[in-house]
């Protein structure tokens, strides 16, 4: 009888789980769990990036006036005419497109952190009396203090205070000269005469140039005029130093 039972019993290798102990079951469970977690991680749909809101819905192409108001510098005003930006106050000349472009980018700058102005103690963030504000058409951006930890700056736009990084450089200190085009001669100018220390050049109605007292060839005069149109300053400063003799 005993022999018969042993003869008909299935071999142990065919049903290994019947011989598994508690530790083996635990290991098997952990392997299954790790496999499931790996599959979840592998097939997990990508997370959408954190939502970023634009400071305004204003398109930079729709802006035709810019005003910079600062506590310690004169107010600067710009107007766009015929697709060219002109500085109209405190002086009237062509504006610096690069600097003005940086201001226009404020309108479409993105921010992932916003605060409600009504719920903040504005003085704590340097916002009770903003020292700098930029107005793009009718939208005013009032700048507050910069966070020394992450170098982000708070900007009031209506009742919202978003935090932005890389605010326009030296907005607080740059004088009017920094916002003037570096081109010595505005590109749309039409020159009729040029008086240099040793020679005078005059353009006739037919476009031909004459020089006096010395004779200069037409080609060389035109090259000289072109040089003036291409001349760009590497720096502009206010001309207010009587100590400098010209």
């Amino acid at each position: 009888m005993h022999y018969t039972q042993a003869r008909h019993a299935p071999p142990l290798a065919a049903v290994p789980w019947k011989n598994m102990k508690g530790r083996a079951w635990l290991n098997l469970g952990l392997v299954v769990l790790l496999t499931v977690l790996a599959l979840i991680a592998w097939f997990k749909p990508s997370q959408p990036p954190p939502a970023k809101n634009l400071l305004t819905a204003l398109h930079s192409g729709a802006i035709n006036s810019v005003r910079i108001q600062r506590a310690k510098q004169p107010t600067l005003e710009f107007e766009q005419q015929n697709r060219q930006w002109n500085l109209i106050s405190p002086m009237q000349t062509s504006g610096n497109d690069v600097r003005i472009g940086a201001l226009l980018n404020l309108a479409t700058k993105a921010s992932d952190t916003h605060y409600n102005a009504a719920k903040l103690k504005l003085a704590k963030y340097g916002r009770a009396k903003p020292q700098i504000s930029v107005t793009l058409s009718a939208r005013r951006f009032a700048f507050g203090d910069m966070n020394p930890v992450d170098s982000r700056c708070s900007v009031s736009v209506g009742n919202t205070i978003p935090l932005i990084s890389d605010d326009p450089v030296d907005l607080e200190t740059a004088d009017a000269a920094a916002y003037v085009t570096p081109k010595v001669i505005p590109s749309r100018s039409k020159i009729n005469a040029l008086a240099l220390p040793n020679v005078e050049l005059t353009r006739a109605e037919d476009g031909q140039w004459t020089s006096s007292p010395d004779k200069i060839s037409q080609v060389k005069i035109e090259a000289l005029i072109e040089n003036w149109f291409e001349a760009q300053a590497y720096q502009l400063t206010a001309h207010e130093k009587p100590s400098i003799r010209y």
Partner: protein
Amino acid sequence: MFKLADGQQMLFKVRTAESELILARPGLGIAYHLLVESTNLLLHPPISVRGDVAP
């Protein structure tokens, strides 16, 4: 000094320093700082010498 077609005049005061050419526009209150290498290109046009003999 430039005379423009629209009747405006642009007066520059010129000063050459050691490494720069400064063109100031007193009427505008702006001084343009250029590399000193620009001096000849802007202020001293090459003058044609009369009586040159063609080679």
